[in-house]
């Protein structure tokens, strides 16, 4: 999905961020949706606080996601901090074993691959890779829901997991028109954790 680094680079350059800042942002933030949100808010309104808040809401899901992978990331704390940065939705989902544990090697390999594609794509974008067709013409925005659906499939083999998926989707659908982007996903994660506690107790 590193292809989306290219339109991010183009968008960021057009928002007046120059060439270096967008690449550095992809290298340090490494979270596509939040970067798109921050840069488009900054580009359209120029409001710094609004841009940062939009990105923070979109990335808030990485707090519970980070907690879920923590026990499978050993080593010193700086190493764990670094490995934690390789967690994005896709690397997290492919490394999940389904029982709440994670395969560290899969997580790191997938994370590094996505990282290089994302940072490299951003560099191509700011350098003016306009020869590539528009991602929407290629239907790439339609690839994301399909990707997450395919990643979801192996995780809904038990009744509680299926209930969590249906509940998460329902909460997200309900909140999309009511809350800023990012909040629906955080709400779904809170529901899953509280719901599971309820059944375990």
């Amino acid at each position, binding site marked *: 999905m590193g292809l989306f680094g290219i339109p991010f680079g183009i968008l960021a350059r057009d*928002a*007046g961020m120059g060439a270096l800042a967008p690449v*550095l*942002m992809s290298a*340090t933030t490494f*979270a596509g949706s939040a970067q798109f949100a*921050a840069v488009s808010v900054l580009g359209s309104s120029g409001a710094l606080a609004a*841009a940062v808040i939009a990105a923070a809401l979109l990335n808030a899901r*990485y*707090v*519970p*996601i*980070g*907690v879920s*992978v*923590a*026990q499978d990331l*050993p*080593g010193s*704390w700086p190493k*764990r*901090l670094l*490995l*934690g*940065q390789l967690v994005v*939705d896709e690397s*997290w989902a492919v490394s*999940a074993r*389904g*029982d*709440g544990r994670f395969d560290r090697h899969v997580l790191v390999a997938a994370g590094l691959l996505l990282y290089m594609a994302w940072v490299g794509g951003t560099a191509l974008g700011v350098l003016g890779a306009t020869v590539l067709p528009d991602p*929407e013409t*290629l*239907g790439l*925005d*339609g*690839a*994301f*829901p*399909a*990707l*997450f659906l*395919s990643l979801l499939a192996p*995780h809904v083999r038990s009744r509680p997991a299926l209930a*969590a998926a249906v509940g*998460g*989707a329902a*909460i*997200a659908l309900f909140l*999309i*028109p009511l809350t800023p*982007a990012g909040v*629906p*996903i955080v*709400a*779904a*994660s809170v529901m*899953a*954790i509280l719901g599971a506690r309820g059944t*375990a107790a």
Partner: protein
Amino acid sequence: MSDGWAVVLLVGAVTIAFKGLGPVLLGGRQLPPRAAGALSLLAPAVLAALVVTQAFAAEGRLVLDPRAAGLAVAAIAVWRKGPTLLVVVIAAGVTALVRALT
């Protein structure tokens, strides 16, 4: 400092902190069984929420656009146990086709 650089710095710091919080505070340690059980339902809930937001959200509204057609065909491919790469390519193709025709 320009606003562009301020966004890079602030969003970067917030994201690194969010992603690092769990691994730094709890890393390598065994979670109590109840907490582990609660977290096992995180993946299905978050992935399902991502499917819905990526397919039906646009600028804070619920919309039905060509992405929905891509998702519908993807659902059939997932049900028929198609590999992820195939599912994604089919969904992109159908989304592009419907967009070009409408």
